[in-house]
């Protein structure tokens, strides 16, 4: 590269002083972005990706600060400018797209006002011209009937539409660089693909370079040409996307790439041979399950006036069976009713209609059904930070099901079994005297698994068990789940929005869309030859690293 880079970061260090010691969030990183280039920054949580973005636009929260290094934008140094001058850079020369489109738009102003204000602050245009430009930008960002929608408020847009507005806003001042920090992480897969396309198209047509920060290698692979891999505040490896994915050099990158599950079967043979006898009677049978939610409860006066209740049909007439010892994957986007389904199956939410049978016993059949269910069904939750009571010791957390169901005699037997469970999930038994906050996310999820196992259940419902975890940790937890399934003959219901995880884990897959089960087939058949058009759309939308040449 002979031309001067648009952005040049040299030996950047960002430090946070905390109680006498300093924490280095970014530790001496250097990289360049050429004009119009899309550079991806990938890494796990805490790698310093977002802090790098914040340092470039000068929005590091105090007490954090840049303690070393230089940042140059188009040849002139920007990291030491006074705040007033930096402020003028933001929006005009550097645009920002944040993760959550709900918080990056002001809910009190129409999007038209927010757009025209931004445009007029940076460009010498009359109000009418600015308005026209706003309409053009929104149309370019793929918002239909942009002229009419200009006077709508942010809450009147869906998440994906809102993120289009945010991208239009970022590009409105014709910046040379756009920093996009996890722009699609809060969105569903199908929307995510569209947003990536919009971001790429807009930045290309306006000649803006992009610094794309993401934990998702798939997103980076689809968007960027070059990628920087960060770990613990340092750059591990820089290279073209193809090189990093196909020919990673550093051990950390190799591990990171290997841990990413793919929706393709890369090695031919299915990961799990169906453990149970295929023709055996199913362990779990869901028949005609429906669950409604009343959105607006009528008061006595409204009932008198005959006003109708608004009802949301979260789950509509869903039926499927799960064979003993197998995993049933339930996929779908947010709001598709996956979790509601799960809650009715573990006894947390009474179904409006239909039955859930466990070995032929109806779990919603009064006290009898509940007693039967309690001993045999357990659940693993999404957020290992919320699913373990922070005030309890790990030993008590794991022993809770045993105590609630009176499965162990006396203290010493309980402790022995807790220690054994901790060994099973590959944790040191000494952990039982510690509190959850002393453990990492992956370790906590293993504690949650140990708790689920402690009542010796037959059926475990796993609601997004790895979506709060980093990819490398996700791989460990999934491996552990498979091992335990073989060891104990467990049956899983695996709920996930991550199709790659489901492909790796499940034997059978059901696809949910707006409360209904649209397709339900063995995993390979469904992924290789999707029949329903929604499934086809979903599979096509997944950013996947295996597509990189």
């Amino acid at each position, binding site marked *: 590269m002979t031309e001067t880079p648009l952005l040049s970061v040299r030996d950047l260090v960002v430090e946070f002083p905390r109680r006498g010691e300093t924490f280095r969030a970014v530790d001496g990183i250097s990289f360049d972005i050429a004009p119009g280039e899309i550079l991806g920054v990938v890494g796990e949580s805490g790698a310093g990706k977002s802090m790098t973005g914040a340092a470039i636009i000068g929005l590091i929260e105090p*007490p954090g600060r840049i303690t070393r290094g230089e940042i140059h934008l188009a040849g002139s140094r920007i990291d030491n400018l006074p705040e007033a001058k930096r402020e003028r850079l933001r929006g005009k020369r550097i645009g920002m797209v944040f993760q959550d489109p709900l918080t990056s738009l002001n809910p009190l102003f129409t999007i038209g006002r927010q757009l025209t204000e931004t445009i007029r602050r940076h460009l010498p245009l009359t109000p009418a011209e600015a308005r026209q430009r706003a309409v053009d930008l929104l149309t370019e960002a793929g918002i239909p009937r942009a002229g009419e929608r200009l006077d709508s408020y942010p809450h009147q847009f869906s998440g994906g539409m809102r993120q289009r507005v945010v991208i239009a806003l970022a590009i409105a001042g014709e910046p040379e660089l756009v920093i996009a920090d996890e722009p699609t992480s809060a969105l569903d897969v199908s929307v995510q693909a569209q947003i990536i396309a919009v971001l790429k198209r807009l930045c290309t047509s306006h000649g803006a370079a992009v610094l794309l920060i993401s934990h998702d290698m798939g997103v980076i692979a689809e968007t960027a040409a070059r990628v920087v891999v960060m770990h613990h505040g340092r750059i591990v490896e820089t290279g073209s996307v193809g090189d990093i994915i196909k020919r990673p050099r550093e051990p950390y990158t190799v591990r990171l790439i290997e841990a990413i599950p793919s929706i393709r079967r890369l090695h031919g043979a299915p990961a799990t041979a169906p453990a149970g006898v295929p023709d055996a009677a199913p362990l779990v049978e869901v028949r005609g399950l429906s669950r409604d939610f009343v959105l607006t409860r009528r008061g006595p006066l409204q009932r008198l006036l005959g006003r109708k209740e608004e009802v949301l049909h979260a789950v509509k007439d869903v039926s499927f069976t799960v064979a003993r010892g197998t995993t049933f994957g339930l996929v779908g986007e947010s709001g598709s009713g996956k979790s509601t389904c799960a809650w009715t199956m573990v006894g947390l939410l009474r179904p409006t209609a239909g039955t859930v049978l466990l070995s032929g016993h109806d779990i919603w059949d009064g006290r009898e059904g509940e007693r039967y269910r309690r001993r045999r069904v357990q659940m693993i939750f999404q957020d290992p930070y919320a*699913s373990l009571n922070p005030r309890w010791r790990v030993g008590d957390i794991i022993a809770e099901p045993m105590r609630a169901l009176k499965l162990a005699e006396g203290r010493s037997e309980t402790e022995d079994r807790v220690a054994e469970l901790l060994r099973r999930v590959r944790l040191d038994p000494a952990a039982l005297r510690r509190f959850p906050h002393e453990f990492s996310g992956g370790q906590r999820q293993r504690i949650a698994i140990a708790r689920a196992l402690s*009542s010796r259940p037959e059926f475990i419902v796993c609601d997004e068990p790895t979506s709060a975890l980093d990819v490398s940790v996700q791989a460990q937890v999934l491996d552990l789940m498979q091992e335990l399934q073989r060891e104990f003959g467990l049956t899983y219901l695996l709920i996930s929005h991550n199709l790659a995880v489901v492909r790796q884990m499940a034997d059978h897959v059901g696809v949910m869309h707006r409360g209904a089960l649209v397709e339900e087939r063995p995993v390979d058949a469904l992924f290789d030859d999707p029949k329903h058009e929604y499934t086809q759309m979903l599979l096509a939308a997944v950013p996947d690293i295996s597509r990189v040449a």
Partner: protein
Amino acid sequence: MTDAVEPAPQSAPQPTRFQRFARSDLLWSYLRSPVAIVSSIVATVLILAAILAPWLAPYTPFDPATLNLMDGFTPPDSTSFAGHYFLLGADNQGRDMLSTIMYGSRLSLFVGFSATVLAAGLGVGLGLIAGYLGGFVDAAIMRIADIQLSFPAILIALLIFGIARGLIPPAQQQNAAVWVLIIAIGLANWAQFARTVRGATLVERRREYVAAARIMGVRPISILFRHVLPNVLGPVLVIATIGLALAIIEEATLSYLGVGVPPTQPSLGTLIRTGQQFMFSGEWWIVLFPAVALVLLALSVNLLGDWLRDALNPKLRR
């Protein structure tokens, strides 16, 4: 994955309770806050002086046998005709001001502390029930709290005090006065606790660990007390500290109005009431010193509560 067992974080031996405290954020924040240090020292001195009054006070002011009317109106830092030395002077009956203040704040603190415990117990219990059960029970409890909060607490306390007076036979009113006062102030202050605890309970009951416990079939009462309660106690501690200061002031106000404890067993409020008659006749020390003691006590406890609130709020932590 192999069968290698992952070691628990930090292979160091379990820290003792003291070590954990010494390393905690709370102590660190305390040592960096001059306000917290000063107010905790002031509060400790005042509280110790009150608790240890029978051993530390130079005189026993409420024993008529030791009183000498000749000592009446002795100014501060002087010796009376009867040959007694009074650091803070003596009142009209010749009682040592220092000793009466020590005994008086003993009673003030006892009433304030008991009333706060009562208010906290009641408020936490009702708040938990309201937050966890929701629906009609929640609405009923919270509307009562709303109604009560729309009256000044002192008015509620006066009302409860008046009702109790009507119910208790006059012969026992002297003895029951302190307990009636505690109940009146306690009942007037439960709503703050109930509101806060209800809010925290609403958040906690949606947490996944509560769902996990429900799946296991843990009984609701057990979930409430073993899971939810420990997680909502943080803010309760803060309100209780600030509430203690308020209760002390409320007690003083009631006693000042003459509806609190009887003059034979004076609290700080009673002392201020009796002292004010002499304010314009030159014997300023009879009212000033109890008032200063009351202000110092309430202020230091209140500042401690403020500091605790900031220290426990990670968003304000620097």
